[in-house]
C-alpha cells in the first residue's frame, strides 16, 4: 500500500469574479494529477515555472484547499479528521527560499521547537532544548546556533535549519519544494547528500520538486514530469532520463546545459509555455510539439501505460520498456 496516494487531484484558482461574487475566470493550476508515493521512496517532480508542481504539493498538504480529487494516507482519505491530523503531522515540507521561510524574529531554537510546541510533545523546557540540540546536530549544525537568529546564517545553513524544523515531528515523508535551487553548486551537494543520509537513517519518503532534471534524476527512484498543470510523463528515473517518451520530456532533457564541452546540443524547443488561463485544446503541448498531428489538436491524450511502470500522456508515445 502506498504511503500517500493522490487520485485525480485538481486545483483551480478563481482569477476574476463578477459583482455577485460568481467566478468568471478560472485558472486550473493542477489538472487531474494522480501520483503515489511509497514508504522510503523518492519521487521527483519536474517541470518549468508555472507548471503546477509546487501547487500540487501545497494542495496535497492542505495549504490550499483542493478543488477535487482524493488524497489517501495509508489507504484512508485525509478528509477524515483523524487521518488528516495524522497526515499533517507525518508529512512535512521544506521550502525553496531559505530567506523567506524562516521567521526573522524567532531564534533558531524557537523555529525548530515550534512544531513540537504545537503538538504539545515537550515534557519541559530542558527536554525541549535537548531535542532541538539533537535535531540541529542531525543537520550538522552546532548547538550554539540555537540562540541565534536566521539572518546570521548563510543560505545553506538556513536550509539546514528548515530541514531540522521539518524533522522535529519525526515525519514519514517530506515534500521538498525546490530545496536547493537558491543555493550555490557546492552547497547544493551538501544538502542533497544530507537528505539522502536522513532518508537512509529515518526511512523517509521524499517528494522532491525541482527544475534541475539532472539532480532530480540523481536523487529519485521515479520521476513525474508536469506541463501546464498536467502530469505528462511518469516513470522510473533511469528509464525516463535516458529514454524519454513524451516529446516535452525529450525537449526538457535535451535543453539541459551539459557540463561537457564536447557535447553538441540537439534542436532547441521553440515557443513559450501558453497561458494557463487559456490552455490550448487537445494536447496542451501541441503548439510546441515537433510531431503534432491532427489528432493532437482535438483529442486530449490520457496518461497511458507504456509497460515497465511507465506512463505518458501522448497519443504517439511508443510502448515497451527497452532502455
Amino acid at each position: 500500500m502506498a504511503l500517500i496516494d493522490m487520485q485525480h487531484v485538481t486545483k483551480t484558482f478563481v482569477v476574476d469574479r463578477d459583482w455577485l461574487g460568481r467566478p468568471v475566470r478560472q485558472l486550473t493550476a493542477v489538472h487531474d494529477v494522480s501520483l503515489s508515493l511509497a514508504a522510503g521512496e523518492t519521487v521527483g517532480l519536474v517541470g518549468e515555472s508555472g507548471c503546477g508542481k509546487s501547487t500540487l504539493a501545497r494542495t496535497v498538504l492542505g495549504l490550499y484547499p483542493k478543488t477535487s480529487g482524493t488524497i489517501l494516507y495509508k489507504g484512508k482519505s485525509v478528509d477524515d479528521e483523524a487521518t488528516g491530523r495524522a497526515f499533517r503531522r507525518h508529512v512535512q515540507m521544506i521550502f525553496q527560499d531559505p530567506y523567506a521561510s524562516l521567521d526573522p524574529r524567532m531564534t533558531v531554537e524557537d523555529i525548530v521547537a515550534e512544531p513540537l510546541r504545537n503538538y504539545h510533545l515537550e515534557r519541559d523546557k530542558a527536554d525541549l532544548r535537548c531535542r532541538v540540540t539533537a535535531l540541529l546536530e542531525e543537520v550538522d549544525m552546532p548547538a550554539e546556533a540555537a540562540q541565534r537568529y536566521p539572518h546570521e546564517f548563510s543560505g545553506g545553513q538556513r536550509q539546514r535549519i528548515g530541514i531540522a524544523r521539518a524533522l522535529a515531528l519525526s515525519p514519514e515523508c517530506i515534500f521538498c519544494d525546490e530545496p536547493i535551487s537558491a543555493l550555490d553548486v557546492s552547497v547544493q551537494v551538501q544538502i542533497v547528500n544530507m537528505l539522502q543520509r536522513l532518508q537512509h537513517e529515518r526511512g523517509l519518503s521524499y517528494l522532491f520538486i525541482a527544475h534541475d532534471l539532472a539532480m532530480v534524476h540523481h536523487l529519485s527512484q521515479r520521476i513525474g514530469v508536469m506541463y501546464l498543470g498536467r502530469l505528462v510523463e511518469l516513470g522510473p528515473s533511469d528509464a525516463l532520463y535516458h529514454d524519454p517518451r513524451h516529446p516535452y520530456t525529450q525537449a526538457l532533457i535535451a535543453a539541459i546545459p551539459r557540463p561537457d564541452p564536447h557535447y553538441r546540443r540537439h534542436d532547441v524547443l521553440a515557443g513559450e509555455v501558453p497561458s494557463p488561463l487559456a490552455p490550448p485544446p487537445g494536447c496542451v503541448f501541441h503548439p510546441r510539439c515537433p510531431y503534432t498531428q491532427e489528432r493532437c489538436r482535438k483529442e486530449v491524450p490520457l496518461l497511458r501505460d507504456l509497460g515497465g511502470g511507465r506512463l505518458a500522456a501522448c497519443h504517439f508515445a511508443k510502448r515497451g520498456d527497452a532502455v
Partner: protein
Amino acid sequence: MATLLDVQNLSISFRTYRGILAATHDVTLHVDAGETVGIVGESGCGKSVTAHAVMRLLPAATTIYSSGTITWDGEAIQGYTEKEMNHLRGREMAMVFQDPMTALNPVLSIGSQIREGLTLHQHLSRSDADQEAAALLREVGITSPERRLHQYPHELSGGMRQRCLIAMALACSPRLLFADEPTTALDVTTEAQVLQLLRSLQAERQMAVVLISHNLGVIAQMCRRVYVMYAGCVVEEGPVEAIFDEPAHPYTQGLLASLPDPAHKDKILTGIAGQAPDLFHMPTGCRFYPRCRQAMQICKRQVPPYYTTGTGHRAACWLLCPEREECAWH
C-alpha cells in the same frame, strides 16, 4: 587575434559599515576580439564585480580600486572621465544583466528603452531609431516587433524580456558584450533558446562575449576559454576542454564533482565541504585551503603563484609546484 580587453592585477574592495570588503584580488584576464570567454564561480566570488569594474558601473563613492590596470583596445581606461566612459559604454562594450524583471524600466515602453542608445550614440532621428529598434527586435527573434515597441516590460514573458535586453545591448554594435548570468532567471527550455541566440549573434557580428555564470553546463556549451574564480581570485584559467577534462585546481575539481553524472546515478557526489569564506575575513595564504581536501602547511601561509599545466592553462595551487616533493611542506 588582437587583444580587446586586458585586465591586469585588478583588486577591488568596498567600504561598508562593517569595514572593508575585499571583492576581487589580483584578477588578471584578457579577451580577444570575437571570442567567447567564460567566468565561472559561485556567488560572491567577484565575477560580476570584475565586469562592472571594467564598465565602471560600481558605486564610485564606496569602491576602492587598490591596484591593477584596465586596458581597452591598447588604451588604459581607468583615467577616463565619465564623459569618455559614456562613449565606451553602449557603443564599444555593453552588458546584459541577470534579472530581466529589474533591468528594464517598468514605466518606459520597450521601444523608448531601445531607442535611448541609438539616439544618444548614433544620433538617429526618432523614426529612424524606431525602425532600427524594430530590426533589432526581429534579430533577437521577437515576433511582430513593431507592436512590441509600444508594449511595456510587464506585458512580456521572462524570455522575451531577456531578448529585449539583448537587443538593447546590441543596439550600437558593441565589440564586447558582457552577459552577466543572462539565463539564470529563465526556465531550461527558454535558457536554451537564449543561449542559442547569443551564440548565433556572436558568430554573425564577430563580437567578443564575456559570459558570467555559475552554471558549468552553460559555460561548457558556450565558451572557448574559461576563468574560474573563487573568493575574489582567478584560481584557474584555460581552454574550455582543459578546464572540464583536466581541471588542475582542487576547487574546479570540486565544482565538477558536485554535478550529478547521469550515467552513474547512484554515485555519491563528493562536492566541496564547508562554505565560501567571509569576504570581511579572508583566510591568509590560499583562499581555498580551509575547504581543500589536499591542503598542506604552505597553503595556509603563502598565496600560491600560477603554475602552467598546458597551453594557455594555468592554476594557482601549491600542488602543481614542481619542487613540491623536495620540500617538506606537508
